[in-house]
């Protein structure tokens, strides 16, 4: 950048102020207040300020299984999505112009629209008389429609993977694009098989993007309540559902806040673990 820049930081740093105000006032502030509230109590439907660890004790004591279930399904969804996304991103990066053009267009166009629309489309797809069941029966793969396709954890996994794929493909494609082709050619010239070249030369350079994709998918899943409610059935209760219900019928904001912070903490622990694991396994050679 040239020295004769028309803006000087000192004078024009003020341009950053509105954005900083939005971040501080509408994100950091509310998140901090939410943290404080998680230590408050509720008595007679009123929030009583104080410092009380009771909410956290209650969440750990009574919501252990749902937290574990949420982390488990989140790990499954985020892993499957990240692996598939890497394959697609790698195809976009390596294949001929037409095929990668179509793949990239499908990714970019499904990225920004139709969260709710996608979920309800899947609901009709997976239903007893839905297209998936009709096809399976029609092809003679199964005799009877599979009831458990909809209103089960399987449906939650299918819907969220389909929804999250474009979000995971883009950072991975970005990381792949910044790798010089020479690196791969060098690896191949030295006798590495295609898979070995990807494992030793490509994947290690994508670790930050892999972690970003995984984290994004994991956090969306951990905080989702619409998908489990719409396609998960009454027995698939994820933390999002329990958190949301504290703000609806039960009206226990402090408990809901404690649930939120415990879920976020557990999620960060899982993401940190995945990051360390990827860094250890995928070393450049």
């Amino acid at each position, binding site marked *: *950048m*040239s020295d*004769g*820049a*028309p*803006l000087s930081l000192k004078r*024009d740093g003020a*341009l*950053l102020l*509105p*954005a900083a105000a*939005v*971040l501080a006032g*509408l*994100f950091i502030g*509310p998140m901090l*207040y*939410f943290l404080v509230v998680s230590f408050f109590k509720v008595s007679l439907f009123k929030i009583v300020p104080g410092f009380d660890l009771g909410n956290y004790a209650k969440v750990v004591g009574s919501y252990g299984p749902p937290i574990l279930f949420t982390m488990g399904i989140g790990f499954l969804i985020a892993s499957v999505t990240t692996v*598939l*996304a890497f394959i*697609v991103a790698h*195809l976009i990066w390596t294949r001929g112009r037409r*095929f990668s053009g179509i*793949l990239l267009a*499908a*990714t*970019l*166009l*499904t990225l*920004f*629209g*139709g*969260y*709710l*629309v*996608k979920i*309800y*489309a*899947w609901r*009709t797809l997976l239903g007893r008389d*839905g*297209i998936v069941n*009709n096809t399976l029966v029609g092809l003679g793969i199964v005799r009877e429609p599979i009831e458990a396709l909809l209103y089960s954890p399987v449906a939650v996994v299918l819907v969220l*993977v*389909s929804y999250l*794929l474009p979000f995971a493909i883009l950072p991975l*494609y*970005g990381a792949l*694009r910044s790798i010089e082709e020479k690196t791969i050619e060098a690896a191949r010239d030295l006798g590495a098989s295609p898979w070995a070249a990807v494992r030793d030369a490509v994947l290690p350079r994508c670790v930050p993007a892999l972690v970003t994709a995984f984290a994004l998918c994991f*956090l969306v899943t*951990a*905080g*989702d309540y619409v998908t489990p409610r719409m396609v998960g059935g009454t027995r698939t209760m994820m933390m*999002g559902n329990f*958190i*949301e219900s504290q*703000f609806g019928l039960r009206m226990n*904001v402090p408990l809901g*806040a404690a649930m*939120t912070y415990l879920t976020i903490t557990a999620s960060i622990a899982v993401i940190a673990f995945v990051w360390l694991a990827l860094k250890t396994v995928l070393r450049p050679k």
Partner: protein
Amino acid sequence: MNIAYGRLANTTIGILCMIFMVAPLVLVVLFSFGSSSLMTFPIRGFTFGWYGALMARDDFWSALANSATVTGAVGVAATVIGTAAAMVIVRLRPRQSAAAFFLFGLPMMMPPLVLALALLSLFSVLGVKLSLVTVVLAHLTFTMPFVILIVTARLRDFDYAVIDSARDLGASPLKTFLTVTFPLIRPTLFGAALIAMALSLDDFVITFFLIGGGNTLPTLVWGMLRTGLDPSINALGTLILLLTIGSSALALRLTRYRG
């Protein structure tokens, strides 16, 4: 042989993933024109009836008006605030600008439910009345990072010599921005605004908790889903897809942004 099989397997996975992403959307559009009230194949006849049924609803028009208000306000505000920030961030040192990206990007990583509930509890303790204004404010948090990202990327490969010349010839900073910088980055700004608008228009969770009363298009979808089988929901879904995907397609053309 092995290599050829691996290649074929990867191509198959790629095609399946694409179908997996696109198929639900295509089906909604197809069935919005199908005359049967059930979403099953084969589609028997073609009709615009579900669109007619949708237009006949009063709550559709008020939801459309609310969506237009929120989306417009978010598009303008996020773009102005985000662009101002991007102009500063682009000239920070690499480490500082990475830190800025991380900080401003945080709301993007947070599940919408968490954002919505944290804001809801703060608004309620401060006595802020829920309305379209609170929805717009909430939408700023997660649309602004996209604007900052896109505009910074454009400013990074900007030719600063033209700005220097303008300043050397005596133009004030404001005049330089209005007559040189702005016309050059205008397509990017429109693109960024359209992305912000697509994100805002599509949001359901945050809007649902912060709107207080009334509907936007996504909360209307939610209401229709809860009241049972109503095929005009496909027409509404198609309309939302048309608006969000249309504006992001246009935005991607304008900004040439590729991740």
